[in-house]
């Protein structure tokens, strides 16, 4: 279990050094995107329109934050991760088209995303679900908000963060997926539980 501290923009070579089970802290630009922002970004790409900012080498964060406007400045009040599986239908294209290097979320992602991470060089960093204030503490500046018409949780928030983490590297760029490993163990344990409770499978 090695600990890495990386700064954006992150290179493919650097991200390839990470292995599942390592711990990662990200400093630099982290951009939130949930279902709606993923969908719109992919639509823009298809139509040849450019995104509000270049995402290459950055971290995308599955997060719908609570934001507060103080004067003309936005503050991240609470910014924990949302469930990432909802973005599984978008993420492979997203990684391919925009070259993000880190996807931050909770709950893990599936095979499509794991394959894309191996192919294009990206990792999935699991941030503790619900640890919203811990996350907000690492966000030092809110650079901008894009696509605010999607609503506060779905908008694309551009954060400048310092040592954002700890992120458990749960999917690395070599095809390893911790969540899938745990699921296999859980399936085996399920049979033990059935036996203990006197249930037939």
């Amino acid at each position, binding site marked *: *279990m090695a600990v890495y501290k990386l700064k954006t923009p992150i290179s493919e070579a650097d991200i390839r050094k990470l292995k599942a089970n390592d711990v990662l802290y990200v400093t630099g630009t982290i951009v939130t995107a949930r279902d709606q922002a993923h969908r719109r970004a992919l639509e823009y790409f298809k139509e040849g329109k450019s995104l509000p900012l270049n995402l290459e080498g950055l971290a995308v964060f599955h997060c719908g934050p609570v934001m507060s406007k103080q004067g003309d400045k936005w503050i991240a009040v609470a910014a*924990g991760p949302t469930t990432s599986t909802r973005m599984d239908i978008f993420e492979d294209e997203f990684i391919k088209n925009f070259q993000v290097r880190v996807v931050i979320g909770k*709950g893990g992602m599936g095979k499509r995303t794991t394959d894309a991470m191996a192919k294009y060089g990206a990792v999935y960093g699991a941030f503790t679900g619900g640890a919203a204030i*811990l996350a907000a503490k690492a966000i030092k500046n809110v650079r901008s908000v894009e696509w605010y018409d999607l609503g506060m949780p779905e908008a694309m928030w551009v954060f400048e963060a310092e040592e954002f983490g700890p992120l*458990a590297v749960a999917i690395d760029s070599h095809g390893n997926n911790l969540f899938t490993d*745990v699921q296999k163990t859980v399936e085996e344990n*399920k049979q033990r539980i059935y036996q203990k409770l006197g249930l037939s499978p």
Partner: protein
Amino acid sequence: MDIKKIEEVAFNILKQAVIYLPDDVKQALKKAYAEETETGKIQLKAILDNIELAEKNQAPVCQDTGTIIFYAKAGEKAQNLGKVEEALINATKRATTEVPLRPNAVNPFNGKNSGDNTGRNIPYVNWEITSGSDLELTVMTKGGGSENVCMGGMLVPGEGIKGLKKFVVDAVVKAGAQPCPPNILGIAIGGGADISMKLAKKALLRPLTEHNPDPEIAALEKEIYEAVNITGIGPMGLGGKTTILGVHIDFAFRHPASFPAAVAFNCWAARRASARIKADGTVEYLTHKLEW
């Protein structure tokens, strides 16, 4: 009973709920931390640090401040009950801007967010009429991640409680990392498809230190608790010993041909708060101290 007072109290319990986790939940998380594996400890430490920071900063413990659900237990002699729902809506709007809460009420047809956590049937109010003249208000702010894995089913009556045990184990395994484990499970059987789910969700309001008063049901709660924690899902689904913090079971009598069952999940950020307003306007906060 002054309607402004009801609004004030509803605002206060809503603010208490989203910032301060109940003591029983905090204690259970601390106990889990002491017993966890290395991987589990990293997750639980982040959770415990986060709880402390939220209290210090008076900020919501999780950014998903949930769908807002009230439970109103009204004495038959309480006044102004017809205006309580309006007061709860006003308190919700105020809390959304002042705490703040994340706007979480979306029109299911066009996807538009109302921006203030209110909309048709939201906040939802569960009413119960009781004797006396007090109004007891409880709020649950229910996160979406744990709501998405709640499961209702119509089981086979002939399989009895064994069928229920399998249903619960399968639901937890299927949920995996999604509901932000360690979770609390509310389980209910009987009544009907809607009744079992309502009872299961309401069971989530019980403190973890309380077990079912019926010793047989309490034993079933313990059996399910121990069994589910063998899954190895662990904190945040990254593996470990603590998948759930507790189990609460409730029931209604069932139709001979039906065996409705429901499992409601709560995330570790199990947010709830209650207060009692007396006819003379005095208020008793039941789960939290008023800290502002």
